[in-house]
């Protein structure tokens, strides 16, 4: 296929898992498979999942292991092409015109020089097209952007080229690895989903989460890690409005580390519960059952 990325991809799913692990990311087989297929076939990868399960982190680690540049586009309601693609540097163009003398202005080249790439401010999408396979393009929280922006992305992700009227068409020589994340605050358009490989990241199992804590917080005592993970998993089973993600588990371990605590008892948990539970209604619910949450597994 002509549109395959030129950047080399790992030999197998297991190899990719090992590489990610060395970067501190524990990828399940499904996630690693989806990523490898995306790298080989030059397709964007759409990661959906609960808050704080490591969707964004995945893109960062992918950039790290491949020695690629991470280009991040954070989406929000009302994002438009000026913030996503490119913008002319009007102030610099003005200064340039002022600096030119009358005679120079009549020269046709001087005017067209105003619209040279020197005066173009690159925004993330243009940077990614220029960088090609040297980049990992992270389009974060695409569900926050408007529908129109999604339609625009659709066009970009299929051709990896953009047209700037004053300069012409800029096409990617090789495709960047594109990772889209969504928290599912709204349903994405089917057309966009079809362009992407889809993977749902759920909460890790007890053993997987212990592994993650060991990887990300190597300083933590093993018994403490087990207790924290067990407590977080119990919290996820409770009827909370905002169940804690893996990020919260790691925050909790760190918070206990700051207090120099090797054991998670009710008192220590009460002091640090703010690292995991960030909703007042949930807090009331959890505080009433704190003994059960931190009980020995």
């Amino acid at each position, binding site marked *: 296929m002509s549109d395959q990325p030129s950047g080399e991809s790992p030999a197998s799913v297991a190899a990719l898992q090992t590489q990610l692990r060395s970067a501190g990311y524990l990828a399940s087989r499904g996630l690693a*498979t989806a990523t490898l297929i995306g790298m080989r076939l030059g397709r964007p990868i759409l990661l959906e999942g609960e808050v704080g399960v490591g969707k964004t982190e995945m893109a960062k680690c992918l950039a790290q292991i491949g020695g690629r540049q991470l280009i991040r586009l954070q989406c929000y309601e009302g994002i438009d092409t000026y913030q996503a693609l490119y913008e002319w540097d009007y102030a610099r163009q003005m200064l340039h015109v002022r600096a030119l003398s009358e005679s120079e202005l009549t020269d046709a080249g001087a005017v067209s020089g105003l619209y040279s790439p020197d005066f173009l401010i690159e925004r993330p999408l243009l940077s990614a097209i220029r960088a090609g396979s040297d980049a990992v393009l992270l389009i974060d929280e695409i569900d926050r952007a408007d529908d129109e922006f999604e339609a625009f992305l659709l066009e970009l992700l299929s051709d990896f080229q953009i047209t700037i009227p004053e300069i012409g068409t800029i096409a990617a020589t090789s495709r960047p690895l594109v990772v889209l994340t969504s928290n599912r605050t709204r349903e994405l358009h089917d057309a966009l989903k079809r362009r992407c490989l889809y993977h749902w990241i759920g909460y890790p199992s007890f053993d997987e989460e212990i592994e993650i804590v060991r990887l990300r917080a190597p300083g933590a005592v093993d018994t403490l890690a087990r207790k924290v993970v067990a407590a977080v998993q119990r919290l996820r089973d409770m009827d909370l409005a905002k169940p804690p993600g893996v990020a919260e588990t790691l925050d909790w371990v760190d918070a206990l580390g700051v207090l120099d605590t090797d054991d998670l008892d009710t008192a220590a948990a009460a002091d640090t519960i703010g690292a995991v539970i960030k909703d007042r209604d949930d807090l009331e619910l959890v505080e009433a059952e704190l003994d059960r949450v931190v009980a020995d597994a």
Partner: protein
Amino acid sequence: MPEGASSPNLPGSWQQPDSEPPEIVERLVGFGHALRDEGLPVGADDVVMFCSAVAELTPSDLEDVYWSGRTTLVHRRDHLPLYDDVFRRYFLGHAPPPGTEPFPAEPISQGLSGTLNVPDSEPGAEAGDDRPMVLGRQASGVEIRRDKRFAECTPAELAALRRIMAQVRLEPPRRRTRRRRTDPSGARLDIRRMARDAMRLSHAAPALHRLSRAEHARPLVLILDVSGSMADHSRNLLQFAYSMRRAAQKVEVFCFGTRLTRITPALDRRNPDDAMKLAAGRVLDWDGGTQIGASLDTFIRRWGRKGLSRGATVVICSDGLDRGEPAALAIAMERLSRLCHRIIWMNPLVSDHADTPPSTLGMMAAGPFIDDLESGHDLASLESFASRLAHVG
């Protein structure tokens, strides 16, 4: 892919003409068909992708095939169980008890939540304090699940529906966005445009161009009470919801009696009678008891928290005759008021333009969190509400 035309029967062979034995391709394509037969939207391009993915991985075991298919053929989380099911039947040839996955995949928890921090252009008014509750009239506690058929719309009703649609199209509720647009009386100067003009016109003094904040359709969430005590009004409410859905851009509609049902997709039919029949079929608890608090709590947990009501005008249409705990309703209303722009409560027991809520238990519990109380006891009053929506929202 022009070569595709020459071998239309084996889409999987387009990209790997020689690398894959045809029987494997047939088996993989067959799997795509099996998924399609079960109702998954699997396109020909998805199947091509699936075959390419399998070819890239040169799978050593079936698990590679499982994950390749899962990432290329499934585009929604809701479809994963069905995919697992078909995979098990197609490749493993048996059907273990439902609920088990063919391979130990990551656990998928049921609770869904998300945070959405949209920059708030107009922070909504904070809700007031709880007030002591007084017992009032109560609703019946029976839950009757039964289909409710709707008679066809009368010509007069159709005319009213058209009027509502026209009215709302003319003046939908709006909110300001971060974007700006050209506006001769705007407060901000459009420096970018002026600089551009100045360059074009060499050094002539540029004309002043101004900008103001653009406006966007404000989402509207309708939550309709279809319990027994509202039986006389549910037809009108559904007609109202249908016209709002057709007229405005971002409208979501929910029904509740003892449980909450989302009927937005059903209302997308062109023909109002079809739409209402379909919507009526989705709701299982017509004319039953009322659990307003529990229903609103479901809304908040499943939709509100994920951002559906963020910046939205939420219209609750109910008489407030609640069989649930008043405290549960008050808590749900308080949470809802923090998750949306404005709560409008339409109560058919309210006479037009009265300011005092009727003394039902539910209304007393919900009262402190209601921004506007409206009547809506017939289609005409709903019509007048629609015309004022742009201003109250």
